[in-house]
């Protein structure tokens, strides 16, 4: 009888504990703190990519706290929540964290296209901005419709456009695209499908054949896709993968002897975990950059001094300065600078989500400010506005030389003659479907 009684008792205790955990009043909080949630995925099929990014995000905030005591004297508190890249877990994290801290969550970075889609529906009601740096809905750069979304630094449409610009330049002009065949090997999910709309338009405009090859998640097996590529012989392969799909693609490219330097990954396919498992086969593979390269810059000195050497970082030594780690610190920097911008208007106290939203919308980092922050060489200037929630449409290309990523191109700027009508059309459609009255940006303050 024993074990069953123990089980009964255990179940009772656990259920009681669960109920208590859910209803317990939150611990009394200091009033002068700014809460920034950190949605991460350190487990599951995408963990290798999720971990360095999450470490970067956390380290920068720790560094601010250690070096400056937060932002303008307001200490930042943060909490990680594991989403496992799953939408429902992400939503639960969001619900759990959105009310924490004296003013609630400052902003969310969902770090998953799926979670972004889901939160896009919830954020306006909760008045919390979403910073979806380099991912999310491409049309959400339209601030008239998407008041709360900020796809800072670049959207997938920007990426697609820049990729084509780069290929055209390599071949010697847009007219050379005509009759060529460009394949998109993509993660079969909303994330991977995002660029298709933009590529469709460009293929019509420039006259290249556009071949779509989906890879079912998680993408560890790509034999048939690469057999197709071998058969179709596209002149360029754009890779829109995530997690294991990237390294598998690069490996398979090696297996079928597809020239690696005719492959161009999006910025989520251009980090160390994407190429290292492929070993030698990755040599020559190229990827877009979300502006920033791998490597250590001025800000890394402070990170080293205040965080790494203090043993406060979870990052492994080799991670420090890697592509995704750097992206993580940029993500935090943009968020905290937005808060600083907001404080300039609303005072040096914890900001509410609404105030942070204003801050992001008025974020303006010029070259000087970027240098001041220690990000010189990592990103270009960014200026967000009500009309343009992307802030900058810049990208470069880097190439893996077998050991590290080397920047091989100059800056490209997204071509708004292509992008803007597309954004406008889809954003308006969304607005109509959701019965959103567009803000009038000329009147927004």
């Amino acid at each position, binding site marked *: 009888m024993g*074990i*069953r009684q123990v*089980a*009964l008792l255990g*179940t009772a205790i*656990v*259920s009681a*504990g*669960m109920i208590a*955990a*859910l*209803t317990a009043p939150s611990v009394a909080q200091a009033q002068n703190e700014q809460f920034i949630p950190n949605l*991460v995925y*350190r*487990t599951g099929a995408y*963990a290798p990519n999720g*971990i360095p990014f*999450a470490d970067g995000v956390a380290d920068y905030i720790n560094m601010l706290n250690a070096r400056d005591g937060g932002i303008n004297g307001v200490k930042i508190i943060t909490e*990680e*929540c*594991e989403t*496992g890249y*799953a*939408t*429902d*877990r992400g*939503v*639960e994290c969001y*619900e*759990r964290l*959105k*009310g924490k801290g004296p003013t609630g969550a400052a902003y969310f970075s969902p770090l998953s*296209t*799926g979670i972004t*889609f*889901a939160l*896009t*529906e*919830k954020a306006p*009601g909760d008045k919390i901005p979403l910073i979806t740096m380099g991912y999310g*809905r491409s049309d959400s750069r339209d601030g008239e419709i998407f008041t709360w979304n900020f796809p800072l630094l670049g959207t997938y449409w920007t990426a697609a456009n820049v990729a084509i610009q780069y290929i055209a330049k390599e071949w010697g002009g847009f007219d050379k695209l005509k009759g060529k065949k460009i394949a998109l090997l993509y993660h*079969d*999910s*909303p994330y991977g*499908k*995002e660029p*298709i*709309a933009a590529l469709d338009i460009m293929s019509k405009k420039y006259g290249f054949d556009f071949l779509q090859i*989906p890879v*079912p*998640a998680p993408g560890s097996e790509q034999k048939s896709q690469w057999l197709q590529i071998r058969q179709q012989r596209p002149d360029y392969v754009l890779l829109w993968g995530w997690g294991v799909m990237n390294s598998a693609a690069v490996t398979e490219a090696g297996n079928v002897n597809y020239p690696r330097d005719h492959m161009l990954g999006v910025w989520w396919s251009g980090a160390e975990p994407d190429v290292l498992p492929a070993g030698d086969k990755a040599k020559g593979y190229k990827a877009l950059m979300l502006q920033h390269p791998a490597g250590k810059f001025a800000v890394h000195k402070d990170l080293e001094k205040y965080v790494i050497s203090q043993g406060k970082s*979870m990052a492994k030594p080799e991670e420090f300065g890697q592509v995704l780690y750097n992206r993580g610190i940029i993500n935090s920097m943009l968020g905290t600078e937005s808060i600083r911008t907001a404080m300039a208007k609303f005072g040096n106290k914890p900001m509410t989500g609404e105030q942070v939203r204003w801050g992001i919308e008025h974020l303006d980092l010029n070259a000087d400010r970027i240098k001041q922050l220690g990000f010189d060489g990592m990103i270009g200037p960014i200026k967000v506005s009500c009309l343009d929630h992307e802030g900058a449409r810049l990208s470069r290309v880097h190439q893996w030389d077998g050991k590290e990523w080397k920047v091989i191109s100059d800056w490209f700027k997204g071509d708004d003659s292509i992008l803007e009508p597309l954004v406008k059309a*889809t954003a308006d459609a*969304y607005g109509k*479907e*959701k*019965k959103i009255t567009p803000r009038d940006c000329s009147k927004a303050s």
Partner: protein
Amino acid sequence: MLYREAGQFKASYQADQAIFPVAQDRLVMLALLVIAFLVVPFVTSEYVYRAVLIPTVILSLAAIGLNVLMGYCGQVSLGSGAFMGVGAYAAYNLAVRLPFLNPFVCILLSGFVAAAVGIVFGIPSLRIKGFYLACATLAAQFFGDWAFLRIKWVTNYTPSGSVNAPPLQLFGWDLSSPTANYLVALGITLALALAVKNIVRGHIGRQWMAIRDMDIAAEIIGVRPLYAKLSAFAVSSFLIGVAGAMWAFLYLGSWEPAAFDINRSFSLMFMVIIGGLGSILGSALGAIFIVLLPIFLNQALPPLGAAVGWQISTATVSHFESMIFGALIVFFLVVEPHGLARLWSIGKEKLRLWPFPH
């Protein structure tokens, strides 16, 4: 001593066949209903609604649906995630294509679409049994995953394949608040749960159970396997489909196909088995358990770790969560293979005998 049925006599077959023949049970049930409908809305925070109550209630319905198939009819299915997806996308398409329909009508109609699809995928069950069938239902799961992604009509040609639920209204009331979502979900779930309970204690339910317990004997006494199995698939898919539509409309709001992937199928199966095969109450208990456990571990582990001076990262928490989850499943199966529902009834049995040991 409070829980005794002595002195309660039943004078009619109706009374004998009641769902809760014991008066105390009826009282407890009534109290729970009152709490669920009248007390909870006044004391609950939005977080508890969004993270706990709404998913639990909706997934309970899905688990009941799967339980009809697995627990009552004995057909193991690993494709329930896809059927939730069918419900969700059916509701979405109805809402988009027939804009004059109220979203709630769409939710209910989506059940019928799911039922039709369920019947199609149930046809192999006439020949295939056991684990072979379980694997075969994976075909439904993967086909669903693919169809939601690839057949553009399903997502109304949205470029990314991610779709949104329409705003929820009824008679001009805005029902998008968490409280409203919760009450709607609870109402639909309870109504359908009651309907299922009625079916399983009637002759159709007995046919299912006959097929489950011994299909050959069932056929020999005149149960048509075709009708029994397919009706179970239909009812099960109906419930799962409605749950899927609610999951999409009331919980996610916006979703991509990954919301209905194989992990959803697995978690539903956990609910059913941990809760108890062939028990409506068990399905709900299972749903509560599976929804709450990760949340609980997530909140409980870091402080526990801190107490012993160990900084636990979210990764560790989530690995631990995975381990504890796995271990608990095994533990429950070892202690009581028939699930929480059986533990519950043993508890009641004990209470009835108490203070005597036998």
